[in-house]
């Protein structure tokens, strides 16, 4: 369904002085969420924007999702705190007839990992990004908790429980996942002293990169409150290294450099063992997400080859779990 008419009808209210829109394109969309790109035509210069929305009837966030209203607030707070982030320009209201969602500035740049990790134009960025990512994560964890929208509080036990439940729901035996769940239960750290905002999905694909480095952190869908070490572990999961397996931080750099930048910016000591725990949990989580894609492929309505093939990537996380938990060489 196109959103052209309601956007045209509302644009002058949302952007005073705007005379229309140009170049409306849908970038992605499932049943519950859509992303659109367009330019706001304005006499003082066109404004490049992105609209994210959940059509009416899909307003209630499924499962773990924070919800688009919460995402808009978090993105705006990140922007105001100086974290690389798109400025939120408008939050949709019921009378706009577009469901829930928001309009944000469109940030130019690259999100495709293989280009970021290999293309010559990002050579300089690759040298800078590990430090920039550590600083950005520190900035996220420093956002004032009293001003945050309502978010789930996730504990270690809660996260392990959620993964176990989802794995069980597939009813397909994966002994390596069982071994990982056991390891997580036996090595679960005590409740974190620090409880902060956690981005929850800080990795390639959700980071816009330019030749000078990090331009924007996107997709706060999995944001929650919990152990700040979780974000540091997730960005080190091997699935986000895209072949550069000796550079744990998104295929870009070392854990040591990430932790140093994080500590310098946050003043909080990194608990290396906790980060490793979250890396193991994150590896298992991505594996379970791959299995979930396969389930959705079978259940329909999206019988796409991409979904099907992601199901055959769950074994990648099994070898990574074994490399973490039962390495064959010292």
């Amino acid at each position: 369904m196109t959103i052209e008419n309601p956007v045209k009808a509302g644009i002058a209210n949302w952007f005073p002085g705007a005379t229309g829109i140009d170049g409306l394109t849908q970038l992605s969309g499932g049943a519950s969420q859509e992303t659109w790109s367009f330019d706001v035509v304005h006499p003082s210069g066109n404004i490049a924007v992105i609209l994210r929305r959940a059509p009416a009837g899909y307003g209630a966030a499924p499962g773990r999702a924070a919800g688009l209203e919460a995402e808009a607030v978090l993105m705006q707070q990140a922007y105001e705190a100086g974290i690389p982030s798109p400025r939120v320009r408008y939050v949709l209201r019921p009378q706009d007839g577009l469901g829930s969602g928001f309009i944000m500035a469109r940030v130019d740049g690259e999100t495709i990992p293989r280009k970021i990790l290999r293309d010559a134009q990002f050579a300089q960025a690759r040298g800078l990004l590990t430090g920039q990512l550590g600083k950005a994560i520190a900035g996220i964890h420093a956002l004032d908790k009293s001003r945050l929208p309502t978010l789930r509080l996730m504990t270690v036990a809660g996260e392990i429980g959620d993964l176990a439940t989802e794995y069980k729901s597939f009813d397909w035996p994966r002994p390596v996942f069982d071994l990982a769940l056991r390891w997580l239960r036996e090595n679960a750290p005590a409740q974190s002293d620090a409880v902060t905002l956690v981005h929850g999905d800080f990795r390639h694909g959700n980071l816009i990169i330019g030749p000078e480095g990090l331009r924007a952190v996107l997709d706060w869908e999995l944001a929650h409150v919990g152990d700040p070490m979780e974000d540091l572990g997730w960005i080190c999961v091997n699935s986000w290294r895209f072949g550069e397996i000796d550079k744990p931080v998104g295929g870009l750099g070392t854990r040591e450099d990430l932790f140093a930048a994080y500590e310098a910016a946050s003043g909080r000591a990194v608990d290396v063992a906790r980060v490793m725990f979250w890396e193991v949990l994150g590896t298992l989580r991505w594996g379970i997400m791959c299995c979930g894609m396969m389930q959705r492929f079978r259940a329909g309505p999206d019988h796409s080859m991409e979904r099907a093939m992601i199901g055959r990537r769950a074994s990648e996380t099994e070898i990574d779990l074994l490399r973490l938990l039962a390495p064959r060489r010292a």
Partner: protein
Amino acid sequence: MQDHPTPVELINAVTEFLRTDVAPQLSGHAAFKLRVGLNALDLVARQITHEADGNAAESERLAKLLGASGSLEDLNRLLSARIASGDMGFQAPGLTEHVWQTTMDKLAIDQPNYASYRRERDAKP
């Protein structure tokens, strides 16, 4: 008995046509979809070629490890249950070697270009 060509020969003939004749004519999303489709067909060909040997060896290892018999799926369900209940873990004799071998055999079919797999496959023992 079915006649020749074999399923793998047929798949390879189709993928060769798609790669050399169709792919150069496509761009954008259609080209991306074709790459995903070719990857899927290559996976199917690898599975047809290697699955039987891998499954037989896995069954044999599982039967020995568990002291039980049954279908490959049943044996894997039993191993999963024993790990989940705490009866078996990495310290159980033969278990680590078994899950490593099984995982390597899965990757050889699923994603033989995955960097972790290549590192482990090529490592000097």
